[in-house]
């Protein structure tokens, strides 16, 4: 399947991020159509298109919109999840940088469909440049009547507020996001109630990923049929794939869903770096179980990847060669989860803390025979028992690496060394590794009287 240019159609334009450039290149066509449609028809159209959420879980977008009760007498909110914290994921970032109006157009259409007058973009705090582009775009859209009161004389009012997040991965989880947006500590909420019923300020709320919303204008403009002409039956449409790791040309590439991984890597990315053979890869960010070279031909759609034993996630493909230690990579990710665990629930809070120590110990050549079993047990005690999907995600790289690369663990433990072809990865296996434990940092809260 060839590369396509739907979401990325303005990436090559120098002025795609300006309103002029956007309009000149056909922007706002979807919104113009939507303003003349009945809200329910927009939802039906999105349902018919089969669009599935691009934030990781792949939930059908039209169905989600359909859950929102219209008769509560309370405002309905739309929240765009631009927190993009999943390791390896940078698709939303480029999209907001290069084509911010596409997101705003999608938001206006979604709002129109939902009966929503106020929306928020919850953007990752580190995303300064995309943030600036969005701020400029929002200002321009207000000036030219694409946002605010009576949009383009249609009588439709719609406001957008950009909110910079404070930099916690967990705040990308939609309910933690809502708490953070309300000014609380970002920790996931108990469900039910689901955000569609009681979300932001306990009002009906839709949370969608940037890419999901940015896809909507095209569906409205070109129709469900057109959308379904790409991708697979259950995973239709185009999709941004963010490729990183040991490939020649890492970056964002747009392909129809279901395109085999090999095709994306070998054609668009120029393949693996010279002299390096694919060893393992994550198909959708670090929270998705690792796959191996054996899975190179699997189609990049929700179903095929699931069948292969992983998840499509955010479609962030992280490619690693035989020069890389999988244990090393896994420790790196595990440290991330340990650091980002919100602390609310026992298995994730305590489990990631322990997992990271065991992995450090193994890489530090202090592993014990039983450690592999313990790692595996701990993952089982976290997966499906944690409060939210962060805990589940933390186990993915560990479980899958043990599944496919147990030998490497065994060799480290028994022989105290990595296979010869592996380059010690600077900064991961260090002489004093194993000392980055939280307790060796000054306790952030030395007394009870903390800031």
């Amino acid at each position, binding site marked *: 399947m060839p590369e396509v240019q739907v979401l990325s159609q303005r990436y090559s334009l120098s002025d795609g991020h300006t309103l002029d450039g956007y309009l000149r290149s056909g922007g706002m066509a979807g919104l113009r159509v939507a303003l003349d449609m009945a809200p329910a028809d927009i939802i039906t159209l999105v349902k018919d298109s089969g669009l599935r959420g691009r934030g990781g879980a792949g939930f059908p977008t039209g169905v989600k919109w359909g859950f929102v009760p219209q008769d509560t007498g309370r405002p309905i909110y739309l929240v765009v999840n631009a927190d993009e914290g999943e390791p390896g994921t940078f698709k939303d970032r480029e999209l907001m940088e290069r084509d911010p109006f596409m997101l705003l157009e999608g938001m206006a259409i979604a709002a129109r469909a939902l009966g929503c007058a106020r929306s928020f973009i919850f953007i990752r705090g580190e995303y300064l440049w995309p943030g600036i582009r969005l701020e400029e775009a929002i200002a321009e859209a207000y000036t030219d009547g694409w946002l605010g009161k009576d949009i383009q004389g249609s009588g439709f009012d719609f406001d957008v507020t950009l909110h910079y997040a404070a930099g916690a991965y967990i705040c990308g989880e939609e309910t933690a996001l809502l708490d953070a947006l309300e000014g609380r500590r970002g920790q996931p909420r108990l469900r039910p109630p689901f955000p569609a019923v009681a979300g932001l300020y306990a009002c009906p709320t839709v949370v969608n990923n940037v890419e999901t919303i940015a896809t909507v204008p095209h569906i409205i403009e070109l129709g469900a049929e057109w959308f379904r002409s790409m991708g697979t039956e259950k995973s239709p449409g185009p999709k941004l794939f963010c490729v990183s790791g040991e490939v020649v040309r890492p970056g964002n590439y747009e392909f129809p869903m279901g395109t085999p991984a090999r095709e994306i890597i070998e054609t668009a990315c120029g393949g693996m770096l010279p002299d390096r053979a694919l060893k393992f890869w994550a198909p959708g960010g670090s929270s998705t179980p690792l796959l191996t070279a054996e899975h190179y031909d699997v189609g990049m759609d929700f179903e095929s990847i699931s069948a292969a034993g992983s998840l499509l996630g955010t479609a962030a493909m992280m490619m690693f060669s035989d020069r890389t230690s999988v244990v090393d990579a896994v420790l790196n990710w595990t440290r991330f989860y340990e650091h980002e665990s919100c602390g609310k629930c026992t298995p994730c809070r305590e489990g990631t803390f322990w997992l990271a120590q065991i992995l450090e110990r193994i890489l530090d050549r202090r592993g014990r025979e039983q450690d592999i079993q313990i790692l595996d047990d701990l993952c089982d005690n976290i997966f499906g028992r944690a*409060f939210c999907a962060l805990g589940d995600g933390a186990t993915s790289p560990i479980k899958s690496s043990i599944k496919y690369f147990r030998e490497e663990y065994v060799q480290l433990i028994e022989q105290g060394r990595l296979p010869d072809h592996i380059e010690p990865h600077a900064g991961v296996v260090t002489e004093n590794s194993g000392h980055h434990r939280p307790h060796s940092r000054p306790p952030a809260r030395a007394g009870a009287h903390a800031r």
Partner: protein
Amino acid sequence: MTDTAAPADTVHLTIDGRELDVPKGLLVIRAAEQLGITIPRFCDHPLLDPVAACRQCLVEVEGQRKPFTACSTTCTDGMVVKTHLTSDVAREGQEGQLEFLLLNHPLDCPQCDKGGECPLQDQTLAHGPGDSRMIDRKRRFTKPVPISAQVALDRERCVLCARCTRFSAEISGDKFIELFERGALEQVAIYEDEPYESYFSGNVVQICPVGALTSTSYRFSARPFDLRSLPGVCNQCSAGCNLRVDVRRGEVQRLLARDNMAVNEMWNCDKGRFGFEYVASAERLRQPVVRDELGSMRPATWLTALRAAAGRIQAAVDAGGPAAVGVLTGGRLTDEDAYAVGRFARDVVGTDNVDFRLRPRTDEERDVLAAVAGTLGPTYDEVEHAPVVVVAGLETEEEVPILHLRLRKAWRKHRQRIVVVGPVIGSLEEIAWRWIQTPAGEESSRLTALASGGDADLSEVTDALDEAGDRGVVLAGERLAHSPGALPAAAELARARGLGFAWVPRRNGARGAVDAGLLPGLLPGGRIAAEPGPVADAWGRLPEQPGLDTRGMLEAAAAGEVRALYLIGIDPVRDFEDPALAQAALERVDTVIVQDLLQNETTRFADVILPATAAQERVGSFTTWEGRRQPFPQAVAPQGLAQQDWDIVRQLARALGSDLGWETANDVRREAAPLMEVAGSALSRLPGAQGGGVVPASPERSGDDAPVSSERPSAGHDAPASSEPSPDSLSHQEAGGAEFPFGVVVVDYLVGDSTMLVGAKALKETARRPAVWVHPADAGRLGLADGAEVAVVGSAGRLVWPVRATSGVLQGCVVLPGNSSGQAPGLLGGSRVRLEPVAGTGGDE
């Protein structure tokens, strides 16, 4: 809650192979409890919203991919649940979580207060691994750190169940304790710049499932298995919290809240929990003392002391008749004691000079109290479920904290409409629906307007009251007695609209005193002197002459008309609104008999001291503000030679030649109960009601048997130009005008400097700083910074406190702390004051 579940509202499910029907919405963990299956849990608490954080309560639900947390999963029809008893998934899941919880746990059980009563220990023993697989480093924290003077935190032991933080946020509403940080560094903490200021902090210690939160007063003092636990009832306020009294070697080690879902649910306040150190304090009166001929105080035997007291009482009667004896009790006696004292005064001595009201009082309150006496309800539950509650003259959090928590619960659970009438909203500000503002002393007109309706700007509230019908409730604080006409107006509001009516006193024994008739002109069960009914048969005689109230007695004593004062459990020198009058009376009067627990400022005037037992040293009962009588057993032996008040009274009667016929407290109760308890509600007996209950309603009643003191001009009329502060005038509008622009309201704080808190050092450190509450606009106008000192100047005096600027008081009104905060606002004279900045003091900020 109260509605019985119709079949349509139930679901049918199976737990561990056993079927049951439960109400819709019930959590699986609760449903299992109904079958006697205890699913392990840490974060779950029946009165807190679920968080599902600890993941200990995992169960298997048929058809579900993952195990569910039973504490957050509601039962659905046809659900099939398997707990750890029948499911490997559940059991292994629970074991896994337990291993995680122990990972960073310090396991310092041998030096942990929780050891022996620790859910983590218990569960580890029951389901946990015998050994740890963890060889890596544990998280370390400095420990313990103070959360407040009363509560210490050990973060290493914390299992982060968020019970404490949820209690703070949901139940007590003081959000000063929070979870900070994330991951394994997540921890409980308080804000650096805001102290953990809560009257309910002890509850977080009690509900903490590990030894992370401990109370500084109990730390390291006992092991649970060394303790003998007895049921108790709190003796600090009229809320009547049920307690567990933990005793070791005859000494009270700690008090815990005991579950009583009808009263305190599972909570109590810090005063009730930590304020028990006085029981064994050095200041306790342990031996009778008698003043000898030379005027010095000598320890004596009970026989000598009782004879001396009886002789002195007899001498007073001989010299001036029975009316030359006055009996003053505080609001702290048990019901049995109150009855015994009432009978002693009337029957044995023959005097009607009896009053329990050391606080300001009016004659007009007596009709209302007579109607309330002996009745039950509205109850806590009725208040909780009332759609509308009108609160007047009551600072719930300071005065009856657990009632405050009930109101908060009602507000949280069903947005109860709480209407505050008066110049102060105080702690109800957060939860009140409407505040009907009136200047100090002018509550009655608005209350009357609420009763009659038709006032356009009150229509919102009257509509709500109409809608609530007889489920609405009026809560009238005892402070309403300061405000002319207000208490009768509040009662009339309830009567006219058919609402529930509760008179809410502060002290634990006040309601029992009312029921026992410890007011001049009132007999047990709200009977008036003129119509004693069965009391006349039960007692040998009744006084012929109407009695004096507290002020009347002290005035008469100062004038030499009352010759003997029998003071039971009160300290008029400190607590009476006019300390100078109290002192003058005590200096002048021939005989002062003090019957008390503790040395206080009045004891030095005593001629005879009779040491009495503390609540934990005796049997008895206290009656809550609802009218619920709660008996309790003796927990510890009395200190020294102290005896129970009723017993002292009995022996004193004997020494005076009367046999009251009691041998045990039960005998007193048996005699008192039929006289004190009254069927029916207060409403039917309120003045103005048709076909009243025991007491026929007669508006003229108060005139008929008017006690002597009522001849003084009562509130609302021109007070005499006297420099002496009259309680009646404490809050009504004198022509204050420009000189004294502020009306005064006096509120006693929960934790003050009262004798009952002797020894409770840590508790006292958590006391709120006495301050003058002023509206920010007034403070701004006068240039008073928050925290700066201000002089409060009245016609007779000047007192200095710091300012607390708060929108919880009306402009033109100030709230002063009561006597227990160290200064007597009564010294100011009158009910109006002006504020003067004190030079050279800055604000807090």
